[in-house]
């Protein structure tokens, strides 16, 4: 009897109940049929898309159409189809089948991308109609201001061409043009000039602090390097103790530790969600413009990022030694010292090196707001239209970052190998350590001076800092501000979406060219490999924020320019990651498919694509995360989006509203982080 009644209710459920539910509330039918994640996803997608369609209609008149006096958006058509798909899906699930996901993806993507297209102000025709501008800016970018030639009583900037003329004339022993390094080189790298004496000169040269004396004027690039180094050093020092507070396995041994653990974890996540550049805005109110502000901003963000990585590393240590030291009667601190610290040293070092790389990149852009380093220089040169000076900075940055990247990754590999070395030190290794120590201290003092670190300023905040703190607590949530901020935030998200998509699509074919195992062994393909990889690496070394100026020149100020700049860095990073993923595939299936007589294209589709899909998806999500963060600051250089709003609010001292923006950035980044982590868990 029970079985028949069960069947009855099953039939009732299977045929009508779930689809009906889904018709009323999308996703609810799937949930009722014990597919909570599927249902939840469908519900969220429908809700978000419906909001976007209505929002787009209101602010941008996207898809506006009027039927008999009733105005709506035709974007509702794909959305309704999506809705119907969801009903069908609920019906099929009750029959132990599912509706094809690809259909839903296409429908949702149609709505999303159409809106994104309008919101990010994409105007492909501008790429063509303003092509002359592109040519002009390209010429300037490839002819950076490094040299000057003297003729007719004045100095003129000259590109690589005049260096070539100079060298060839010298070689041929003809009278050479008067070529010299330009002033711009001095600005970027440094020059002999006058400096203001600090305590260091007082100590070494016996002059008074503040006196103007002859010396080496540090260039903006050197300043940038110093900012990156100092921030890495400071953040490591602060992150180590904090990471112990954020490690579950440590804190569960301490009374009240659980609570501390949750508080610290939450704080770290919030601090991490705010980009370095945004931190810069807050810091300059505190300590004023300059490299010092840059160092603090980088340090704050990087403490949070490092502490999180460190604490995860602590959580993953081998518990065996901990148990062993506890068993000898060692106390909490001794356990940490003898069982935990020795285990985490290599991974901590390697994360610090990784962070150094990231900090150097951030140091190149922090100047956009904080007023120190090469970012500040770029901002100034663009403002006066000095694109050749700007180009010189770009190339210099590229060289530095590529070097840093190389050193950091080589060093990391060596550390992670973690070869046991003789624990007893030879005399030579002692001398070497001593030399390193002296060099390190010297570099530290030099960087300290270059970045004009002034701890007194920390306790002597700027006049409006108190107001900023107060206003940030009581942020402005009035509807008009919220509407404006929401609009800019959506633009920002859409920029990241378009840039990720565009960058990845373009990168895909190139990534195959940059994969050693696919390019074959001929000399021609070897060149293709080297060139594509080279392009990836050079483009990747420059932050999106620094690219914006080029696209502003080409397509004009606005979200389109920002999106294109993001797409360039996406192209480079995704290209590199994709090609490495392709290089890491298992060759077995390739052999097998080739053995069946398949051609190269068939081989790619049947043997490679299935293998690379999971890493590709994971990299796309990773890039999307990066792009969201980047998109929040792209506006500082004229790239549109929330950054512009933030900059304006800060500039006009409207801290209530700036607080709103920062809060919304934190929330949105947190939600998207969580979502992408979930997606990665599910599919990759």
């Amino acid at each position, binding site marked *: 009897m029970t079985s028949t009644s069960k069947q009855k209710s099953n039939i009732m459920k299977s045929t009508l109940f779930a689809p009906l539910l889904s018709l009323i509330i999308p996703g609810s039918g799937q949930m009722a049929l014990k597919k909570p994640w599927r249902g939840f996803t469908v519900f969220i997608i429908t809700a978000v898309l419906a909001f976007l369609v209505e929002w787009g209609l209101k602010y941008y008149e996207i898809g506006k159409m009027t039927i008999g006096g009733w105005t709506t958006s035709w974007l509702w058509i794909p959305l309704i189809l999506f809705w119907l798909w969801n009903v069908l899906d609920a019906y099929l699930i009750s029959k132990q089948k599912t509706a094809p996901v690809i259909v839903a993806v296409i429908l949702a993507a149609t709505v999303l991308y159409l809106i994104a297209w309008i919101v990010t102000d994409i105007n492909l025709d501008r790429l063509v109609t303003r092509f002359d501008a592109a040519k002009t800016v390209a010429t300037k970018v490839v002819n950076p201001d490094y040299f000057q030639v003297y003729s007719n009583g004045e100095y003129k900037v000259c590109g690589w061409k005049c260096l070539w003329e100079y060298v060839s004339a010298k070689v041929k022993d003809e009278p050479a043009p008067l070529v010299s390094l330009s002033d711009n080189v001095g600005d970027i790298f440094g020059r002999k000039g006058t400096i203001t004496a600090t305590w260091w000169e007082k100590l070494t040269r016996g002059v008074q602090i503040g006196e103007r004396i002859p010396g080496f004027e540090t260039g903006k690039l050197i300043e940038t390097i110093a900012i990156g180094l100092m921030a890495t050093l400071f953040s490591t020092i602060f992150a180590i103790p904090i990471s112990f507070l954020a490690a579950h396995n440590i804190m569960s041994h301490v009374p009240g530790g659980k609570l501390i653990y949750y508080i610290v974890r939450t704080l770290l996540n919030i601090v991490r969600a705010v980009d370095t550049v945004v931190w810069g805005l807050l810091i300059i109110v505190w300590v004023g413009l300059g490299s010092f502000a840059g160092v603090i901003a980088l340090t704050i963000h990087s403490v949070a990022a490092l502490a999180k990585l460190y604490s995860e590393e602590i959580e993953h240590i*081998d518990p*065996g*030694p901990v*148990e*062993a*030291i*506890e*068993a*000898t*009667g*060692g*106390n909490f*601190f*001794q356990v940490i*010292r*003898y*069982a935990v610290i*020795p*285990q985490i*040293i*290599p991974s901590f070092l390697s994360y610090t090196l990784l962070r150094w790389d990231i900090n150097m990149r951030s140091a190149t852009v922090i100047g956009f707001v904080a007023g120190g380093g090469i970012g500040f220089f770029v901002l100034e040169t663009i403002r006066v239209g000095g694109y050749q000076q700007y180009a010189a900075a770009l190339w210099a940055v590229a060289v530095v970052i590529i070097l840093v990247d190389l050193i950091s990754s080589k060093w990391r590999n060596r550390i992670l190998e*973690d070869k*046991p*070395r*003789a*624990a*007893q030190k030879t005399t030579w290794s002692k001398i070497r350590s001593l030399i390193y120590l002296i060099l390190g201290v010297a570099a530290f003092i030099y960087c300290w001076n270059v970045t004009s670190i002034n701890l007194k300023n920390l306790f002597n905040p700027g006049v409006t800092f108190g107001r900023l703190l107060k206003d940030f607590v009581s942020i402005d949530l009035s509807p008009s501000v919220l509407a404006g901020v929401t609009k800019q935030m959506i633009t920002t998200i859409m920029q990241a979406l378009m840039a990720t998509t565009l960058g990845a699509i373009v990168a895909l074919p190139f990534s195959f060219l940059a994969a050693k195992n696919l390019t074959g062994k001929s000399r021609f393909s070897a060149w293709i490999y080297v060139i594509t990889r080279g392009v990836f690496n050079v483009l990747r070394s420059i932050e999106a924020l620094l690219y914006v100026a080029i696209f502003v020149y080409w397509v004009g100020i606005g979200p389109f320019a920002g999106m294109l700049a993001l797409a360039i860095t996406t192209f480079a990073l995704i290209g590199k990651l994709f090609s490495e993923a392709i290089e890491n595939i298992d060759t077995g299936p390739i052999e097998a498919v080739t053995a069946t007589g398949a051609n190269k294209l068939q081989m790619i589709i049947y043997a490679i694509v299935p293998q690379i899909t999971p890493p590709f998806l994971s990299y796309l999500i990773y890039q999307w995360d990066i792009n969201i963060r980047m998109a929040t600051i792209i506006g500082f250089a004229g790239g549109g989006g929330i950054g512009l709003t933030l900059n304006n609010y800060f500039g006009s001292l409207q801290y209530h509203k700036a607080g709103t923006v920062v809060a919304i950035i934190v929330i949105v980044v947190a939600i998207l982080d969580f979502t992408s982590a979930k997606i990665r868990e599910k599919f990759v």
Partner: protein
Amino acid sequence: MLIVKDLVKTYPNGTQALKGVSFEVEEGEFLAVIGLSGSGKSTLLRCINRLIEPTSGTILWNDIDITAAKGKEIRLIRRQIGMIFQQFNLVKRSSVNTNVLSGRLGYVPTFPSLLHSFSKADHERARNNLAMVGLEDKAHVRADSLSGGQQQRVGIARALMQEPKIILADEPVASLDPVLAHSILKYLEQLNKERGITVLCSLHFLDLVHRYATRAIALKDGQVVFKGLPSEIDDKQFKEIYGQDAERIEIS
């Protein structure tokens, strides 16, 4: 004398690892703890030095109630109980000497020990204990560059630094091949016979129990199913401990 009475351990996930275990160990005994995987051997040994909190029951050791000890008392008890682990539990990246010295942590003041500063006497102890296990020349190499057998000898030297009255050994030879197994157990036997250190050692192979133990207890599903001399474990007992399908195998 160590008296374990009605020891119960229920893990937070509900697993009843020990269901009222009682037994006694005289000073100077070499007690083998046998039983199938999952029978509760590791849990039992770790309750004795409170690495695991027993749910109920008492452990008395020479009239000290181990189960009632708190904070510093626990550490003072622990330092008199050496422990040897199946996976050796050395700090792999530290030198052998540091690993051995860390056995002294229960005795030294906290602050100097955090700076890796140990007394001359402790360094001397470390040398002697390493010599005792035949590794004096390995003091300055990293622990992970040693073989498994050598690592376990370092584990013994570390335990000896505590000048223990009891040694708990949790399957000390399960990760080693048979020849090394004998060499490690011989060290334990030597310590037991020459220094009178009580040894509680969980073992998998019955012939090792016959060869080294003076007495044995067997656990099954968290309960004691056998107490007596190793020689008393006959085929019937064996089937009871290890189940009907088990076969006796010998290792040389």
